[in-house]
């Protein structure tokens, strides 16, 4: 027993020592449990100096559409045929369930910046410059939301989890939201200090003014033409648009690119790597040195990759003759073949699509490049963004930077705003549309306002417009900015959504089973047939235009069976309804907050 007691005592002592030994480290090491991250920054570190503010504002740039998005911007438009009908235009297909675009993370990112950029250690001017950049992006982001959905809720602070009133509030009226957008734009124009950025990739004061002209023109014309909505102040918005454009024009920083001459200077804007600093105001940069590329060639030449957009003939017909007269004034223009109709036209046509004389480079040698029917459905095959060297055709390897805002748009914005206001002058005309047409090699009608309505343009595009100036400005906007992603929302603001149901037509084919030389190089390129001949000619693409193939309707046909304009996919109906001027609020968003309410017609 004594022995046992001894053991217990010893044990007790040992346990006590052990306990002390164990507890000591707890006290000593308590501190090691307080660890802070080192590979990330704290809020204080970012907002305490100018480089931190620049670091943060760099994150806003993804709000600007990138090259790939801009190039695809007209994938749903009236003037281009494509592989299939977009879901939005298919009867009874698009609805609130598949609606998208309701992502509010970019706004939170901006508002978090604006709320926290208040460190007095940084001068007001510096902070205001970055706040200006942030508010520029907020304005642009909200503008895109309003374009798409109409009314949206306005927020100027990042929301907390328990901000129930704000989180669950109904949408704010468009007028409130757009007034706030305008306030942001004005703040940006006034406070952004940078005026010259040779890389054309940063937000400057002039970028802000140019964007303001775009946004205000949209809002002004939208309010003017959508009379059913009874929106006020259209004129104010148009004045703001004209003023903002005027500021850019008066800055003297920009001019239309003329390098390369009239036949080349236009397309150069879309295929060069370096910014065309004369005309580019903001670009999305590709830079092989930085291993940043675009998929331009892949998208615009691959038989399998993209939407395979091609202009339709109705639109190609609007390109003027070089003498300034409408092409459709020529008798027999409607049965002209491709090699003929593409002559003596606005030089922007040959810089937009493949026309006779266009060649490409394959492994260093020049090769003929007629429209490729593995790509085009109409024969009017775009080259605006695709590089001539075939080495770029596959994969994301194209090296062209793409304009986001360029000076030509500012001129068009100015002209249109002034015309809509009814205050446009001959001088305005000469400075804007006249200058653009001159670059397109057009020789007359450059200095005075047009006075005659082009009946073709009016009948096919804008039957409600009788003002020849507005008609001609719209003609040039369509041509100048084709495939730059403006078209759908131009139709929206002009209230011409109906155009999206136009038929998709292509080149005129005089006769079936006939070899055609499209690029006038002496060798036949294509033949439209009802079945592939047993002895095909090498190098000829045989396009089957039989009414049916294997008992099914052939989407590729000739208008009159054995001759006429090529047509594509007119067997698949497209519809327009005025509800489509707004996208539906996504169903999932409505389920979470029913107070948002659905846009009319989408319930």
């Amino acid at each position, binding site marked *: 027993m004594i022995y046992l007691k001894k053991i217990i005592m010893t044990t007790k002592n040992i346990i006590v020592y052990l306990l002390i030994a164990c507890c000591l480290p707890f006290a000593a090491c308590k501190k090691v449990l*307080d660890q*802070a*991250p080192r590979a990330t920054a704290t809020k204080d570190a970012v907002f305490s100096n100018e480089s931190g503010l620049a670091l943060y504002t760099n994150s806003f740039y993804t709000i600007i559409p990138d090259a790939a998005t801009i190039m695809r911007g007209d994938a749903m438009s009236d003037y281009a045929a494509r592989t299939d009908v977009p879901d939005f235009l298919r009867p009874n297909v698009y609805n609130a369930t598949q609606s998208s675009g309701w992502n509010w993370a970019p706004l939170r990112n901006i508002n978090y910046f604006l709320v926290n950029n208040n460190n007095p250690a940084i001068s007001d001017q510096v902070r205001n410059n970055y706040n200006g950049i942030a508010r520029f992006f907020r304005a642009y982001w909200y503008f895109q939301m309003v374009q798409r959905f109409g009314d949206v809720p306005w927020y100027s602070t990042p929301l907390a989890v328990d901000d129930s009133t704000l989180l669950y509030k109904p949408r704010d009226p468009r007028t409130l939201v757009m007034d706030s957008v305008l306030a942001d734009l004005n703040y940006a124009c006034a406070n952004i200090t940078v005026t010259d950025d040779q890389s054309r*990739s940063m937000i400057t004061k002039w970028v802000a003014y140019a964007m303001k002209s775009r946004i205000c023109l949209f809002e002004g014309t939208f309010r003017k033409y959508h009379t059913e909505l009874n929106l006020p102040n259209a004129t104010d918005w148009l004045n703001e648009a004209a003023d903002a454009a005027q500021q850019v024009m008066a800055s003297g920083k920009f001019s239309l690119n003329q390098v390369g001459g009239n036949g080349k200077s236009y397309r150069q804007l879309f295929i060069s790597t370096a910014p065309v600093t004369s005309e580019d105001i903001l670009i999305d*940069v590709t830079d092989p040195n930085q291993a940043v590329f675009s998929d331009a060639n892949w998208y615009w030449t691959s*038989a*399998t990759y993209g939407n395979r957009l091609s202009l339709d003939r109705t639109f190609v017909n609007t390109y003027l003759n070089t003498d300034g007269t409408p092409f459709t004034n020529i008798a027999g223009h409607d049965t002209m073949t491709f090699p003929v109709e593409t002559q003596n036209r606005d030089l922007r046509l040959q810089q937009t699509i493949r026309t006779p004389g266009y060649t490409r480079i394959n492994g260093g040698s020049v090769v003929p490049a007629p429209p490729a029917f593995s790509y085009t459905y109409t024969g009017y095959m775009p080259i605006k963004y695709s590089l001539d060297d075939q080495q770029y055709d596959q994969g994301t390897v194209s090296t062209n930077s793409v304009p986001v805002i360029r000076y030509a748009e500012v001129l068009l914005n100015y002209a249109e705003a002034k015309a809509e206001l009814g205050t446009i002058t001959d001088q305005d005309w000469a400075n804007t549309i006249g200058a653009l047409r001159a670059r397109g090699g057009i020789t007359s009608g450059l200095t005075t306002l047009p006075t005659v309505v082009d009946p073709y343009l009016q009948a096919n595009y804008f039957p409600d417009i009788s003002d020849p100036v507005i008609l001609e400005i719209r003609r040039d906007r369509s041509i100048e900015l084709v495939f730059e992603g403006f078209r759908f929302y131009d139709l929206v603001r002009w209230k011409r959504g109906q155009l999206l149901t136009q038929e998709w037509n292509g080149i005129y084919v005089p006769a079936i089973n006939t070899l055609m030389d499209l690029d006038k190089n002496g060798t036949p390129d294509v033949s439209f047939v009802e079945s592939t001949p047993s002895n095909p000619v*090498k*190098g000829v693409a045989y396009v089957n235009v039989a009414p049916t193939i294997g008992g099914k309707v052939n989407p590729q046909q000739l208008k009159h069976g054995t001759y006429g304009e090529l047509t594509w996919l007119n067997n698949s109906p497209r519809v327009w309804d005025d509800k489509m001027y707004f996208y539906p609020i996504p169903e999932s968003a409505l389920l979470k907050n029913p107070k948002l309410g659905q846009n009319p017609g989408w319930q």
Partner: protein
Amino acid sequence: MHLKDHLSINIKNKRMRKNLPRWFYFSATLLRKHAIHALSTFALIFVCTLSAKAQSHLINGIVTDEGGRPLQGVSVQMKGSNVGTLTDGSGKFSLSVPRNATLTVSFVGYQTHEVEVDGKNNITVQLKVNAAGLNEVVVVGYGTQKKANLTGAVSQVSSEVLENRSLPNLTQGLEGVIPNLNINMQDGKPIQSPSYNVRGTTSIGQGGNALVLIDGVEGNPSLINPNDVASVTVLKDASSAAIYGARGAFGVVLITTKSAKKGKTAVSYSSSYSLKKPTAIPDQVDNGYQYAKMFSEAYSAGSNYTQLPQNINKTQKFSQAYLDAFKEHDANPSLPKIDTNANGEYVYYANTDWYKLLYKDHNFATDQNISVSGSSDKASFYVTGRFYNQEGIFRYNSDNYRMYNFRAKGSIDVTKWLEINNNTSYSSVMYHNPLNVGEGGAIWRNMSDEAHTSAPLLNPDGTLTYSAAYTVGDFYYGKNGIDTSTNLIRNTTSFVARFLNNKLRINGDFTFQGTNNNRTQKRVPVPYSTKPGIINYVGTNTNDLQEQYIKTSYLAANLYGEYETTFGSDHHFKALLGYNFEQSVFKKIQEQRNGLIFPDAQDISLALGQSVTTNGGWEQWDILGGFFRFNYDFKSRYLLEVNGRYDGSSKFPTNQQFGFFPSVSAGWRLSKENFWHVSPKAISDVKIRASYGSLGNGNINSYSFLEQLGISQSGRVLNGQRPQVTSAPGVIPNGLTWETSTTKDLGADISFLENRLAFTGDLYNRKTTNMFTVGPTLPDVFGAAVPKGNYADLKTTGWEMTLSWQDQFNAGSKPFNYGITVNAAHYEAIITKYNNPNKNLSDYYVGEKLGEIWGYKTEGFWTADDVDQAAAMNKNISNNSSVWLPGDIKYADLNKDGVISHGNQTVNNPGDMVIIGNETPRYTYGFGVNADWNNFFFAAFFQGRGRTDWYPSPEADAFWGQYNRPYNAALKSQLGHIWTEDNPNAYWPRYRGYVALSGDRELSVPQTKYLQNAAYLRLKNIQFGYNLPQKLISKIKMTNASVYISGENLWVTSPMFKITKHNFDPESIDGSDRVLTNGTNGDAQNYPMLKSVTLGLNITF
């Protein structure tokens, strides 16, 4: 021969028996002759007998088993001397000993028996079979425990499960050997070492795997020498894992390395040579014309037969004229396979089997292992080295794998009571992973895209074709790849101080571990030619070199004391108290630069481009905890164990850093009760166990409670560079506390028929509560991920069991020993709380059984009679053409609304969707047989799972073939099973491309007909060997020599093979290659599982 050598024999035998864990306990009996321990023991005994001559009294004896059958090779030794012998084939021995000597009779698998000579001249000894491993010692947290006294759910296997196998790393050898240690192989890469899961779904919040400890300290099992492993123990329930606190919430795996053998210095060398090849390769249509025809058919069907393809994807031109010409070339072999067209471009009429070009017919691996061990009475040492080399399976730019291991252990008794140990290990693993610069994804996805059967690898002038440059040609070019090397140095210094006659033991250890993970990735453009003399390049935008250095420094220290005593003779107490501190510091640096000046450049100095990316990385965590364990048993009849740990972790906010995690378990050995009168011949031992405990889950990311502004590089070029950016931090949770896993376990250990048959089984229920998951849904205007919180609960229930049988009989007057072991496990997990009030199917919901697959019921195909209803009915499904035709798929309109739809994708309105299956692996099992006879030994081990439903992802090309993309390879397994008007009851629908592409496509929507049962049964290992007779090898001073042939993964079967044939392995059906992709490039687009045949040799001097 010295006395100490003699003594060591006993120790060794005892030690060996202790080390033989349960799972393979009986097998050990049978496999004894090729177990290194056993061999050296016998060898020593053998040597000993030679010197045992000078004694006076001759005693003859016979040793038998309980059935009276003679036992050969039984050790008979005089206690306390070096005198001893072995029994012969008829169980007989004779020995000269003093008249009053005591003989120790011992034999592996039997209880050691002592007998007094007492002047007798003849004795008979009957040995009893060892009682189901009840004396076996099992490794538990911070100590060991006799199996008989275990109250928690613990499984252990010994090194036998790893022997004579060709294993690139340890993890690959543990699959299937322990019930509910779930190892999902994913693919067959030699570096593949998946995480260890114990008992199924852990947490859908923070997640969490089992904690893996090597010799008591956290370690990486993929870097250890498999030959160093003595045992692997899995602590499954809260009670046994509680001592590890917050990291043991989802089980603990303890890997224990071998130690020095006592006795004279022994040198063991083993060497093996393996031939390996894939278990499955997609069997593709290898006739180019047939491929092109099927491509054309699938493509044109995808556009409702309105369009003919113009290209075979990106790399080959196509037209009807080409197809016609191909037909001609196919029919007339004298026509050239490569031609040129009017533009001078190559035209191909090839029949290329790209997989033949990709893989070697077989590849080799070798494993060289040496160990030296020895000891004096005060010190011992154990040194091992291993070199494993596996050349890759790729024919070009092969993925070679090498692993070096070195370990040195030493032990010294400084004083009578103090022992100091040191354990140093070094591991180095090198692997070359080739890559493609063409597009994202690994080679298999790229081959689906561009390895067209109709195109060859090379042009006549030796340049690569365009198709090749995207695929195998990149490997042929041989310059692109990722080289990884991992180096680990680890040292543990420890001491044991024994006081009070070994009743009190104080242990301490300190470990340092430094791991370097280095990675170099090179991508240069691959030249190809589509026209003689003209070279183009694939991958011009990826001409760069990337280097990454990661260093993880880890420290661990433990100090613990254990006191053990018995009061009276019935009350046995054991108490453990300890302290643990660990720290890990992770530091990463990565740089990348483009513009290599020539394609063979190896160093970043030769990259001259302007695209420079640099990244850092840092993480530090610290853990400290105090723990205790208290054991009590009364007469080994009533057992009680209480565990607890007070744990602190730097991963939690200051006010939540500490948590206390207790557990309790108890056991009752019914068979020890006085009222137990069942004959041991029927039921030999019965124990019932129960445990309950609650553990916090510390597996959370560091710093997740802090607002962090991450810095990364912009993808945009701004002002001439790609600048760094930062943005709004994620919204952090208001409060963050520990996830908790609470486990209830009920188990039984029962042995029958004199311990020949043993059963261990457990039922468990694990509730993971307060899981860190998404908060309540907020309107999207919130603009950020809703902060996570402790919002969800999960219940996992399951069972596991092991059943083993061992016996022996005489065959040809030689004992034939054999054993059979079966293990099985099953679990399912159900969400019991979750923030998803609408029960959207896009997220977890309350009542969801994890793994469930929602889909449509396939009714069959549309026929000419009813196809006019198809367009209206299938309006939410796409077949890539707006027209539905006979042979397209018809789904069951379960809600009878005339349209197939997914409703609003909620549980309450799923439209026509129902739960069609469950992808959780269910009823996992393993079973093995082993036997030995007359120096021959044999073992086979099977493993598999009873059920796993698998709906192949859209890009799973080895399943879908051209239904995915028409330019994919066509599959032979589909031929004859595709719908046509003449074959209306085929398995596959109308042949259309792009219908298994994505989203709502005809075959992409999960549905019953194409759901696969990926259950499988695999012959994981089979081996056959021979121990060379002692007579022979002793002449060359060898104590053991064995040769064997062993096969790994030689056979596998699965119910889905009926459809898929052997296009891929059932274990390799998960998402694509994880080294080069994020797993979303198509199921089964993976490195193939390998099978192997190994010839090996083990010798010991």
